[in-house]
């Protein structure tokens, strides 16, 4: 008997179609796996009743024929997505007890396609973090360990629960969101695939906002084919998000031919950072060779403003966050502080926000408030937006030269230990996103593919960056890289 939890979305879909298994059987298997994996702290709100109800409906739909690809497939949903009647807290204390009366467009699309929601997944608070350590639910734990060392490692962040759950076979796939690398970095830290589509591909409606000009949802899956299948179900125009694009959604899976002969792959010299670990350097060189062997043309390129992407991000993202998070005022939803006699409305706001927001969120809201304040708006915020224009132009220039995709490392290191960065200044943590954040600033699609292990047996990933709206072509290049790398390692089960 095959272990159902080890299936990919594509395999499970085909088994459901063939009648080898039912969605109810699949769902029950995953619900048990989730209950056995509380040590990973990946699922923070379990929804077994909803899951079984949807599984039954999916089985009926499959029996009738003509069910969509995702029909009957059990998945996890990041806590950032509002889900009707199910706690949706963005891993924040300030949204304690919040149960939305509505469903986010992306999770609604997945539901409409017949996907089965198993529960909500852990993450960094308001998606602000790279290690899942800012969550009000506590840390999510990476199923991977360094050799025989039982020290707990981070699954990355902010979509850390999604990454841990997929890597540990607690669901077939999960939704993530990515503002500066929050899909791609955790995917790389856990040996799975994650794609952030072009800004505007997925509706942001009903997704708790962090930095609206950067946020995008995307799938986190076991392989590239699954990413193609799930992305197609997630994206599409939505009247409720005016920045969502009105373009046809291609059949991404049908574009996976693995043929990348003649494609031009750019290798940006600015991503060769000082002090880059030799293992990362080798991973990158190996990946380059794989694409070359598959028939791609390798071209050295320059993206001169790369160095300024992180500092620009740490102006723009906190600025937008300070504005977006102004809505948490203790009036309409979530937590309200207990007030002392004589406290007025200002005290209510200040106490509520001090109690409800964690440290990192408070810091970013205040940095954002500062860079937007009178006298500093031009010096910080407008300057950062100008630099953002230059960063986007860097990419436009190389695409104009005929580059089809850009290959870079996904992260500067493998997963680090939980607590290891506690004493570091915030900038050290921010450096996790050094290779991914440019992609958000330029609004481009980027995918992280696992391609190797480090000397301690931890997964490492490479990132491919594509042209806007060409996720299909990008996924095909990722598919070719995946085929060549042949990454099959899985974490040993200790939980």
């Amino acid at each position: 008997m095959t272990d159902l939890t080890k299936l990919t979305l594509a395999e499970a879909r085909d088994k459901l179609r063939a009648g080898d298994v039912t969605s109810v059987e699949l769902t029950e298997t995953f619900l048990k796996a989730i209950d056995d994996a509380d040590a990973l702290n990946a699922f923070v709100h379990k929804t077994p009743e909803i899951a079984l109800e949807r599984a039954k409906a999916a089985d009926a739909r499959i029996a009738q024929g003509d069910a969509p690809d995702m029909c009957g497939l059990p998945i996890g949903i990041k806590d950032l997505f509002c889900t009707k009647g199910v706690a949706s807290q963005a891993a924040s204390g300030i949204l304690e007890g919040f149960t939305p009366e509505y469903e986010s467009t992306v999770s609604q699309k997945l539901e409409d396609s017949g996907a089965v929601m198993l529960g909500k997944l852990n993450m960094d608070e308001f998606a602000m973090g790279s290690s899942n350590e800012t969550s009000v639910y506590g840390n999510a734990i990476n199923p991977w360990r360094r050799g025989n060392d039982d020290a707990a490692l981070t699954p990355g962040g902010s979509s850390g629960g999604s990454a841990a759950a997929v890597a540990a076979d607690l669901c077939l796939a999960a939704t993530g969101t990515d503002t500066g690398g929050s899909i791609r970095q955790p995917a790389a830290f856990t040996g799975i695939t994650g794609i952030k589509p072009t800004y505007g591909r997925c509706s942001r409606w009903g997704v708790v906002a962090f930095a609206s000009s950067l946020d995008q949802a995307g799938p986190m899956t076991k392989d590239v084919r699954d990413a193609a299948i799930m992305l197609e179900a997630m994206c599409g125009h939505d009247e409720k998000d005016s920045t969502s694009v009105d373009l046809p959604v291609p059949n991404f899976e049908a574009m996976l031919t693995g043929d990348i002969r003649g494609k031009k792959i750019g290798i940006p010299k600015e991503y060769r950072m000082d002090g880059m670990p030799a293992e990362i350097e080798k991973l990158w060189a190996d990946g380059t060779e794989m694409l070359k062997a598959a028939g791609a043309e390798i071209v050295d390129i320059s993206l001169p403003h790369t160095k300024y992407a992180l500092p620009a991000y740490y102006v723009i993202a906190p600025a937008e966050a300070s504005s977006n998070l102004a809505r948490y005022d203790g009036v309409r939803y979530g937590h309200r502080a207990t007030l002392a006699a004589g406290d007025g409305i200002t005290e209510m706001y200040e106490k509520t926000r001090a109690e409800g927001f964690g440290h990192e969120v408070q810091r970013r809201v205040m940095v954002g408030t500062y860079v937007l304040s009178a006298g500093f708006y031009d010096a910080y915020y407008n300057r950062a937006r100008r630099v953002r224009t230059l960063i986007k132009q860097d990419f436009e220039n190389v695409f104009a030269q005929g580059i089809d995709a850009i290959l870079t490392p996904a992260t500067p290191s493998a997963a680090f230990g939980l607590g290891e960065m506690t004493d570091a200044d915030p900038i050290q943590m921010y450096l996790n996103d050094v290779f991914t954040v440019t992609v958000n600033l330029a609004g481009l699609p980027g995918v992280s593919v696992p391609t190797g292990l480090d000397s301690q047996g931890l997964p490492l990933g490479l990132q491919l960056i594509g042209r806007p709206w060409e996720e299909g072509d990008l996924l095909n290049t990722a598919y070719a890289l995946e085929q060549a790398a042949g990454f099959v390692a899985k974490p040993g089960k200790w939980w």
Partner: protein
Amino acid sequence: MSIDESTAAKVAKLARIKVEEDALPALAQEFNAVLGFIEQLNEVDVEGVEPMVSVTPMRLKRREDVVTDGDQQEKILSNAPDAREGFFAVPKVVE
């Protein structure tokens, strides 16, 4: 540019986040670390460069100016920490 404790207190006030007096020095220090990092942007020549407004050049969609939903007072109030008689309740605002 260095942030002192009084600036940190001012920013906390603007952000409507209560910060205790004794936490201000550490907060100011953290601001300075982040702002020091951001200072690098001053090296970039941005003369004549337009600040980005939208990462994807597109005209925002327009729709008919009609009511699309409404009449859901109960749903809107369902998550309020304090709702009374069909309203959100807050401490006294005007004396």
